[in-house]
């Protein structure tokens, strides 16, 4: 096989290897699952932060942004660490089982490398999904100065959260080959229930 030359060739070679590792270690399926699950967590947690701030009478965008950012970072770090530890343990067990079955040390083969790469990819997805999803929901708060009234930012952020939830489930509906709208509505209801329950906190 010819060695690829130039930066583009090497990048394409790395990409090819990564795809091969991903297929060997079955990364796509688990990464998709983690992404949907944790982005869902990220959006709903951010609904909680928004509603908590709103109900507590916080009318400063900067306070909401700081609490929101701190929460997103915590969720990101939690996802990254948690997934890394559990995934590494799981993959090690799987590799050990395969090594027992094939009576071979697979650590230095592409199976071993694929397993190690899988742990990193899955941990990154698990950490970034809730972090990015939460940041997107917070976007209208960053633009609070443009709207003049912070209540507009609150409403826009909640609308963005609901759209995100709908989109996330529509994505899962697309994967399962089922109705996009039917799936999307189920998570939309989760978001609305979460908003409604938090709202009750404020009405004593």
């Amino acid at each position, binding site marked *: 096989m010819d060695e690829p030359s130039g930066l583009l060739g090497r990048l394409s070679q790395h990409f090819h290897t990564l795809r091969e590792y991903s297929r*060997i270690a079955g990364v796509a399926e688990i990464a998709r699952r983690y992404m949907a699950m944790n982005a869902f967590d990220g959006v709903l947690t951010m609904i909680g932060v928004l509603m908590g701030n709103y109900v507590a009478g916080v009318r400063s965008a900067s306070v909401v942004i700081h609490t929101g950012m701190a929460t997103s970072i915590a969720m990101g770090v939690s996802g990254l660490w948690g997934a890394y530890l559990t995934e590494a343990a799981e993959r090690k067990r799987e590799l050990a089982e*395969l090594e027992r079955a*094939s009576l*071979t040390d*697979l650590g230095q*083969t*592409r*199976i071993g490398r694929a397993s190690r790469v899988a742990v990193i990819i899955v941990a990154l997805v698990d950490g970034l999904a809730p972090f990015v999803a939460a940041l997107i929901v917070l976007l209208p708060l960053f633009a609070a100065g443009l709207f003049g009234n912070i209540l507009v930012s609150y409403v826009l952020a909640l609308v963005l959260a609901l759209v995100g939830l709908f989109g996330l489930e529509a994505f899962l509906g697309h994967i399962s080959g089922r109705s996009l709208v039917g799936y999307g509505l189920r998570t939309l209801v989760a978001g609305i229930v979460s908003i409604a329950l938090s709202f009750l906190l404020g009405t004593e």
Partner: protein
Amino acid sequence: MGNLRRLVLDVLKPAEPTIVQLVQALADLEGVDGVNISIYEIDRLVENAKITLEGNHLNYEKVARIIEEYGGAIHSIDEVAAGKVLIEDVDTPQD
């Protein structure tokens, strides 16, 4: 040293990577004209494969390295042929 023309190996390998990838990786080796892999036993996680390579200048070390890289273990070398022409196994009255 005589050029190696045929190699038949008995290999135990994990189900993944598949034999489709392994056969292509082996076929890409220098000196290999063709490769055949047939599975004769399947387990839950591993499979037993008979790998036949033919070419003009097979390099056993490189072949073994690729097989190991794909997680396989060579259990035995079942047939080899080298030289100017390819000689088939000959039936004798004792067979």
